[in-house]
């Protein structure tokens, strides 16, 4: 839920004056925390705030801490443009204290472990130095910790025989100590190792926070876009519901009478009545089309809008399949679904998106001359691509698979989800491609 707090923090910063950027200011606190009470220097409280190997106590000098703190501040400065040296300094002096503080996050570094382990090897003693650091990001005004990340870095070294010849290999970094380091004492060397390890760590921590912030901002943007679209969709539906209601009244009478006229005139002799039967039949057919249209539009408009949530694509396809099953059976058609990777997830209004897919499937089922419809879903970069293909014969009269209200509704829904719906006719096949942004990384 920290992510939610971060998003909330970003949201809170929106009322800042136009000149300010949307990203928060960061004040990296100087100094290294967590060493208040250790085995080297027990604090008044008694409870150790960090776990330190006794052999390393001499290495945790003031200089070491200062060096670590400098590395921390420098790393934060490299990853974030908006860094303050005193909290709240970016804001105009006229701004109230509370608001000024609200615009700043405090970044602090905490040591929780500095350890030493040795392993005897035939060639010498192998030395391991794990260092565990934690980055805490706290809202200055609220005091709430919004982000915290802990990581351990292990510096490794080898000590050959009596001569203090150390070769330091920093895990994952392949950093080597300069040759002059051979002249250092053991204690100095330890300090150097620890310093390097910590520097690597601090850079990583700063980077991880930067990544988290960027991801949170993207999520916020996406959510805002979705909400905006959802509002538009809601208005559209409310309007269409009212119109549909009005239309369905007179249409009800029309449909009944048109059917009656068609039945009554069907067997009239052509010599006397000319083409009256055909006219009546045509009127009836159009009335039925209208009635069908109204019913389908009403289904689109009448529902309560549900809130967007994470929807696995395989679940979406499964639901759509179940809805069209009766049609498949009735028409004797077949739906072939390529196994969908289970890790594809989109942010969607479940009922809407299912409706869109169902509309496309229904169109395909009634259009396919061989009764076969193929459905496939795959990841393409940061979006999911759902393809629907079926054999296709161009209709003699208008109103084939490429048109119709079901398709319009499907497209509206897909676009409201930030996606696209494309239609392609290649030769004898109709292909619909539905693209939706993946919800990954949330």
């Amino acid at each position, binding site marked *: 839920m920290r992510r939610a707090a971060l998003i909330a923090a970003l949201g809170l910063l929106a009322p800042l004056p136009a000149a300010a950027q949307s990203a928060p200011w960061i004040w990296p606190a100087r100094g290294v925390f967590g060493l208040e009470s250790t085995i080297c220097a027990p604090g008044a409280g008694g409870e150790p705030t960090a776990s330190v190997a006794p052999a390393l106590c001499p290495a945790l000098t003031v200089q070491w801490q200062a060096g670590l703190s400098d590395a921390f501040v420098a790393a934060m400065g490299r990853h974030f443009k908006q860094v303050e040296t005193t909290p709240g300094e970016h804001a105009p002096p006229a701004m109230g204290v509370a608001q000024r503080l609200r615009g700043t996050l405090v970044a602090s570094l905490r040591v929780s472990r500095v350890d030493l382990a040795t392993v005897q090897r035939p060639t010498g003693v192998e030395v391991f130095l794990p260092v565990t650091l934690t980055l805490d990001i706290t809202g200055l005004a609220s005091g709430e910790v919004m982000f915290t990340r802990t990581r351990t870095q292990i510096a490794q070294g080898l000590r050959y025989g009596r001569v203090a010849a150390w070769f330091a290999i920093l895990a994952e970094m392949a950093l080597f100590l300069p040759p002059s380091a051979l002249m250092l004492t053991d204690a100095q060397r330890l300090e150097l190792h620890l310093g390097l390890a910590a520097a690597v760590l601090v850079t990583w921590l700063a980077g991880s926070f930067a990544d988290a912030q960027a991801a949170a901002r993207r999520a916020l943007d996406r959510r805002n876009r979705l909400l905006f679209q959802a509002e538009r969709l809601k208005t559209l539906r409310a309007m269409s519901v009212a119109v549909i209601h009005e239309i369905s009244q007179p249409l*009800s*009478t029309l449909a009944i*009478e048109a059917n009656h006229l068609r039945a009554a005139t069907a067997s009239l002799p052509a010599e006397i009545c000319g083409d009256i039967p055909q006219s009546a039949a045509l009127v009836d057919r159009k009335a039925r089309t*209208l009635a069908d249209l109204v*019913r389908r539009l009403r289904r689109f408009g*009448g529902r309560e809008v549900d809130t967007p949530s994470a929807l696995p694509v395989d679940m979406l396809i499964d639901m759509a399949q179940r809805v069209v099953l009766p049609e498949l059976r009735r028409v004797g058609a077949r739906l072939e679904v390529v196994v969908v990777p289970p890790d594809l997830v989109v942010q969607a209004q479940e009922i809407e998106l299912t409706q869109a897919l169902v509309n496309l499937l229904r169109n395909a089922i009634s259009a396919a001359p061989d009764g076969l419809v193929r459905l496939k879903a795959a990841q393409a970069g940061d979006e999911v691509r759902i393809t629907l293909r079926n054999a296709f014969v161009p209709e003699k009269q208008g109103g084939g698979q490429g048109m119709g209200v079901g398709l319009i509704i499907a497209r509206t829904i897909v676009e409201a989800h930030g996606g696209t719906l494309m239609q392609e006719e290649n030769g004898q096949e109709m292909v619909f491609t539905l693209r939706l942004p993946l919800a990954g990384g949330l």
Partner: protein
Amino acid sequence: MSEPDLLVAILDDDADLATAVARLLVRHGHRAQPFTAPQDLLCAMEAGEWGCVVSDIQLGETDGFAFAEALRRRDAHVALVFITAWPTTAHAVDAVRRHGGLDYLEKPIDEARLLAAVAEGLAWSAQGRRGAQVLAMLTRREREVFNLLVEGHSNKEIADRLGISARTVEDHRAAIVAKTRTNGLAQLVALARAEASGRHP
């Protein structure tokens, strides 16, 4: 198969639609009459046996469901079919469960479905009325014996329960069979069920 002596009423504030539906039902062999005002229908119910009412949910100021309740209080054996231009799932469930509607149709109306609902409603109504009529012919004592019989009690048990002799029970039973013109216990049970469903749709 329609019951020739039971009427169908169509209630909708759109006069054209009410008339069109009435004529449609007439074409299919029913006796149907259109109404646009709920009060008119309630008055008409005094004079005539109504088997089924097809009613809109929005009737101007009146709520179709509330009207349906009033209707039911007048006559427990009227089948109800609801039609509306504002279908929502909640309403559909309401219609069937609380107000004893047989079906819930959206406009424009599916003719086949309407005809099926009306036919079913009329059959149900006729059955309920028959049951009620028949049972009204029984005396109070006969009614008591009948209730226990259809619960599955033996003559002896009934005699014990009611504090009468087994012979008396047999006499009552013979009278019941004669009045209801049934042929066996199974038919008596069916009669009891038909009458009960009329009271609790």
